[in-house]
């Protein structure tokens, strides 16, 4: 039996009331909380710092008469080391980035979303757990290893099966980039499908539809925004990827006409030439300007993706 004790013991001698925390504890807590606030704000400092420093190194180029922004953006003439007539046009690189990213998305989006559907709708919990772990490991492979795979394995396969003279080209970069972006598309896409309330599924299944009809008529429309965000984040990753495309796309600065053409992307261009450009030279500043362009581009894509995701959460 656990009745009340016959008498409550007398209140303990030293009451809690009136006790004070020692000064060092209170001051220490203040200092620590100050530190927490500072670190919390640091993300803003870093992002602004990145933009400011890259912009700072790029800005003096605008003072040069020979430089024009329109030429930079819309000319495909890239001759940074020419003796007589230096020309800095990155349009060919923009086209290269566009071509590789587009091809990568054309491969990765259907496969990524298909895999996301399989994960969230068809497979059992054990298999799902296993696949998710594999996808996580897939996402962890360093980009330089991807580049190496492109350079050594993929290029040989491409030369063998397409008869192309060079194996490092848009197709190679696109496939490698697709494999790299699939994990992010799968994981965000699966989250989006998970976010569709189960009541939708039950309501549809109660009407006697098959799973395929359920997916096509109910889930895909309902998860539309989340899937869009997944694709956008994949695009962001594709535009920003450096090492893999540097090694897998070849180095030809020209606008590609077929998937078997070698190209150079914006990121690869910086990585390839920054080492040779003397600090403070025009060439160096133009490369930083390319960095500003990349920063703005990925910032925009990520911002839109975030707005899309936020739109889902609000609903």
């Amino acid at each position: 039996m656990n009745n009340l004790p016959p008498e409550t013991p007398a209140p303990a001698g030293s009451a809690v009331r009136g006790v004070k925390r020692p000064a060092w504890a209170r001051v220490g807590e203040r200092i620590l909380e100050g530190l927490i606030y500072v670190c919390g704000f640091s993300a803003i400092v870093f992002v602004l710092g990145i933009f400011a420093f890259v912009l700072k190194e790029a800005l003096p180029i605008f003072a040069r008469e020979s430089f024009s922004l329109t030429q930079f953006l819309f000319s495909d003439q890239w001759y940074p080391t020419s003796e007589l007539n230096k020309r800095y046009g990155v349009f060919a690189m923009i086209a290269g980035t566009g071509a590789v990213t587009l091809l990568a998305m054309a491969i990765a989006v259907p496969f990524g979303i298909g895999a996301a559907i399989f994960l969230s709708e068809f497979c059992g919990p054990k298999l799902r757990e296993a696949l998710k772990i594999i996808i996580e490991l897939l996402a962890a492979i360093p980009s330089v290893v991807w580049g190496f795979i492109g350079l050594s394995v993929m290029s040989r396969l491409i030369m063998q099966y397409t008869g192309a003279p060079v194996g490092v080209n848009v197709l190679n970069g696109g496939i490698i980039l697709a494999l790299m972006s699939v994990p992010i598309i799968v994981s965000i896409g699966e989250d989006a499908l998970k976010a569709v309330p189960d009541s939708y599924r039950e309501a549809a299944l109660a009407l006697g539809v098959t799973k395929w009809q359920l997916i096509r008529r109910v889930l895909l429309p309902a998860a539309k925004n989340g899937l869009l965000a997944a694709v956008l984040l994949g695009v962001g990753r594709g535009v920003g990827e450096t090492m893999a495309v540097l090694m897998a796309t070849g180095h030809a600065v020209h606008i590609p006409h077929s998937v078997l053409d070698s190209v150079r992307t914006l990121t690869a261009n910086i990585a390839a030439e920054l080492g040779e450009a003397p600090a403070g030279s025009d060439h160096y500043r133009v490369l930083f300007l390319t960095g500003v362009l990349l920063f703005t581009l990925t910032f925009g894509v990520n911002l839109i993706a975030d707005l899309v995701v936020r739109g889902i959460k609000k609903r």
Partner: protein
Amino acid sequence: MAVETHIEVTDLRLAYGHREVIHGISFDVRRGEIFGIIGPAQSAKTSLLRCLNRTIDFTPDTHVSGSIKIDGQDVRKTGSVYALRRKIGMVAPLPVGLPLTIYDNVAFAPRCAGLTRRSALAPIVERCLRQAALWDEVKDRLNSLGTRLSGGQQQRLTIARALSHQPEVLCLDEFSIAIDPVTTMRIEDVLKELRREMTIILVTNLTQQARRLADRTMFLWNGDIVEIGTTDVIFGDRPKDRRTYDYVQGIFG
């Protein structure tokens, strides 16, 4: 017992964003009484308690006006909000055993207050566990996790924790919602004992519980006071307001 006002609420209003949930209520709680608060769901009973110990501050976008005075001291002008919360013991509807040992669960509040000597903590832990009628069940395993106890035990652990900083006021928010009737009866016995030492505010959706325990009861409905009265009147045949009668008799609610 001399009638002495312990808590004085004057024209209290509370809004979440633009939605006002408490519409200017005023009432007194007397020292040493059990003050029952009854009312259907959504009548702002929990919000009222959170205004009392100012944990409402943690909810963003809330606006409080009016005053709540404990011992004549306005809670919103108090020097240390932590000292204020230590004056008030709060027991939530669902038992919350912190993922600490049973001993640490009860010693947590004194430690936060700055009491760290083991010789001072041990008697407090034992006294509070005894007061909450839990001591005999756990005295041999004070070092096991509080979260491993059963629901009813966890609720008594929560009460022990609420008593550990020697509060002057004990607020219980629908404490019996998640526990079985036997444990409920046992905790009710505990409360009858405790009323000798402190003022108790008992928020409950079981009208019969308020009838069994409370000296006076307030019927709160949609953020307004319908009626305050002694237990005889509220639960009698002729409360002042028709709605009180209907609610107590279970005609609506």
